């Protein structure tokens, strides 16, 4: 069974005359260890889809199953616990806490889960080393570059050993080099560390790191592209396909 199973997801913002249908009967599945990219122009509903998959928002219609659990029926606290244990988030604007150092930032999900401080810091340190920040453990966010801050965010997303990582335009605030590094890191998250990754982006090059790309337009999933070992990271192919939808 798929890790994520979303059926006929619809999300309408507002009501009456000004109602906006941000997502329109979208169905998809994501397998464990799979890296899926979601592409589309600005305002097509990418973030909306991601938030629904992560249980941050509730759909107007349709349902989401994560690891066999239908999250629509969960209470707010149960949903929160599920997020804490099964899902990691990476945001466009990093969203680190400026007063905490890299280790404490990365350790947050464990700390919130009641894990003892020492144990949480040890595990956060391990993950920071894995994402290549072993030498910046005690730096505060303002002492780190954008790329480094996003690495801390990735470590934070992984520290609670979730099965799924959701990333909303993780390279949106980064230069090309750092963007490549982060996309590569997410590839590693799926390949080496065995998590499923759903990443929203509008950059064809970044999307080409994924196993599969969903094309979204006006809230509807209009197309899908599978990339295998030999056309992986072929940005031209993705861009061409994007032009067609």
């Amino acid at each position, binding site marked *: 069974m798929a890790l994520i199973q979303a059926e006929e997801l619809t999300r309408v913002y507002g009501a009456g005359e000004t109602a906006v249908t941000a997502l329109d009967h979208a169905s998809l599945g994501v397998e464990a260890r799979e890296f899926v990219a979601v592409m589309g122009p600005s305002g097509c509903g990418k*973030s909306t889809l991601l938030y629904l998959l992560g249980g941050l928002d509730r759909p107007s219609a349709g349902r989401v199953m994560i690891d066999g659990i239908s999250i629509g029926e969960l209470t707010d606290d149960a949903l*929160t616990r599920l997020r804490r244990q099964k899902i990691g988030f990476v945001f466009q604007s990093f*969203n680190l*806490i400026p*007063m*905490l150092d890299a280790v404490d930032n990365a350790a947050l999900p464990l700390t*919130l889960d009641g894990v003892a401080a020492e144990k949480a810091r040890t595990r956060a340190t391990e993950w920071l080393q894995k994402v290549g920040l072993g030498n910046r453990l005690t730096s505060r966010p*303002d002492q780190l570059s954008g790329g480094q801050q996003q690495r801390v965010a990735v470590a934070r997303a992984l520290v609670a050993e979730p099965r799924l990582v959701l990333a909303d335009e993780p390279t949106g605030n980064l230069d090309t080099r750092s963007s490549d590094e982060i996309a590569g890191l997410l590839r590693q998250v799926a390949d080496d560390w065995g998590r499923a990754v759903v990443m929203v982006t509008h950059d064809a090059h970044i999307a080409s790191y994924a196993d599969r790309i969903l094309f979204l337009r006006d809230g509807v999933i209009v197309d899908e592209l599978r990339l295998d070992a030999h056309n992986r990271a072929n940005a031209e192919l993705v861009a061409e396909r994007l032009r067609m939808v």
Partner: protein
Amino acid sequence: MLRLQLTLAARYLLGRKLRTALTTLAIVFGTMVIFGMGMLLPTMLAAFQANVLAAAGQVDVTVTQKSGEAFTRSALSKVRAVPGVRVVAGSLSRTVNIPSGYYGRTQLGALTLTGIDVDAAQALHSYAVTSGRFLRASDESVTVITANLAEMLSLHLGDKLHLPTADGDITLKIVGLLPARSQPGNEEVLVTLSEAQKLLALPNRINTIEANLNTTDQAQRDVIEGAIQSSLGTDYTLGGLSGGSELLAGLQTGQAAFSLFGFLALFMGGFIIFNTFRTIIAERRHDIGMLRAIGAGRRTIVGLILVEGLIQGVVGTAIGMALGYLMGAGILLMMGSLYRNFVHLNIGAPVIEPQLFVQTIVLGVGVTLLAGLLPALSASRVSPLEALRPAAVEHTTQRFTRGNIAGAGLLVLALLGLVSHNARMAALGGLLFLIGLVLVAPVLVQPIATFFSRLLTLLVAREGTGELAQSNVVRQPGRAAVTASATMVGLAIVVAMGGMVWSLTGGFLGILQKSLGSDYLLMPPAVSLWGSNVGAKPELANRLRATPGVAVVSTLRYAAATANGKSVALLGIDPVNYTKVASLAFQAGDPQTALADLSRGRALIINGVFAAQTGLHPGDSVHLSTPTGQQLYQVVAVGGDYLNAKIQTAYISQANLQRDFHKSEDIFLQLNLAPNANAATVEPRLKAILKDYPQFKLVSGQNYFEENKQIFNSTFMVMYVLLGVLAAPSLIALLNTLAIGVIERTREIGMLRAIGATRRQVRRIVMTESLLLAAIGTAFGLLAGLYLGYVMILGLSTAGYPVDYVFPAGGLVAAVAIGLLLGVVAALFPARQAARMNIVRALRYE
């Protein structure tokens, strides 16, 4: 241009309704206190003038003896002889306190009994009787009263009016009614001069001369008034009555304290606004940069921010004044009944002086603009590039600034002031201490927050919420310091007041036991404002002495005098009997011989307050102004009794009081029973005698002590009410900081919720943050409060009040409890707000 600024300002303010409301609230509170408190003194003054001066009516010149005592008619002839004086009339007037319940259910604090020289008085005033007739010189036992009073007492023409006097209860027949007076005040009971002299036991004496002059030219009037003054000498005063000035001084002190509090509140309001504006600027760097990029000048930006401040200042001040009026009127209403019963002053409608409006508006709007100015200037320095750059990660590290170092210096100076044991230095030190703490606070925020967050983490804030809360506090040390300072000021006053009330209670109850420890007390209605009480002739004391079972009776008599230019209440005591029932608490001189020494020549014991005001010591000589001229008295000791501890008082022998002041009326009596007497049988006999003297209340010494202890306890209650008011600015400051923090960190809260923080954890973060801020404020407040309390006691004892400093352990506990409560209450709303936040909207928040 201004239209654009107004539009933008209004949009921004409405866009953040909650924050706008909170900031405006800070101004509302400050102006409310200033306006409300500013109403009190003028209203009381008006009441005072209406009561005391209304009797004087509309005449050109009023002459009284400086001491307020009665004098002979020779002064009258002197005034009449001055060229330019058209008519003169002498009168004898006195406030008669009415015991409660005297007129059944009608509550009447006091009446003014006035004896007039019927023919002369009618040349000065027009007495238009509405029914009946006016007084005739030959009248006996008749009176003319106002229709008002008659209505209040349900009396009609021909009815009898009861009145308590030194001769016992008397009745006067009402022969005429005067129209109701326009000014509120004590109602007048008019009798003939000879009648009043008989009733008040002051034969051939008057205490007021009224005169009209034969010119309206101000320069000529001044000349005539000068001539009257020089013909009478310096013992006489021209103009209004001088009596009751001690009450006025008390009112003024109270007003000063309240105003100071109002300014403090507004000062804190200014801080809060300053804070908010700094936050606003930080938030809008992008917008401001964009405005600059498309061509807005620096001045436009400053104007934009200031217009926003102006709107808030005007709205806040208007609301504050409206609420202030309600508060002031409410306080006056409450004080009204208190004053009627204790000081016998009727308080009328609230009086608002025009300058109070001006003052409140200037302060309210001015503080807002001033607080907005610095942030506005810093906004104008935002470069147009800011619009194009992504927002930098905020992070402020606190380094030592010049302010911190100056603050530390002030703290050292303050401690030196305390060590100096000089009240004035210490008082100055108190101010320096407060300012110093506010200045060093930002440096101390980090260590104190760390300390308390460890504590809180152990207790409640587990799962990392404590660390997060601490990081929120430390993130803006300046803001945290200001917030904590607001709490500090409130709590410092709690602790200081606690210390003072505790110390005073101890000191006063000690003297109470000493000076009023007799078996029974005969109390007049207005204790300590002796001049307005009606006493009794020596006959009462004699009848009490003759009562079987009574061992000893001691009495106090009263006269007003001035010494060294200060007015003083003279109490005549009978040294032999007094020592048998009570004692004075002595601060200087020989307690063994002091009372006996009163009988040797003209000798005087002065109390601490009077000693502090005049600088007199035992052994010094001082001239007292008396109706018989200046008399030289020798100070033999400094000491006092309970009832007069707050008033400048001196004690002389009753023999001297009779000789120099012609006073022999007993205004307060104490008695002890014989050792074998049974109180149950004696008490009815005493009560029977007092039927004739309803102005006295029989109280057992034990009961009186208990009653007074009760009064001290209710003083605590008043303190609690005051604390409620004091807590408001602290609460607003806390609430404001927390709410702004929550708004600023919206996206962070969204992130925390996304990665797995429950609503409860988010709520706990805000709650802990609030508790941390409150804890810092409380820590400072305790320090400053102990300091201020000590200074107050030091000041009181230098001013002559017999008090020792008592460590306010209870005040400390109360302050800590209040601090914690403030923390919890302030956090309720912002914590809910944070916990309820919609995650997706929070993450999308710009």
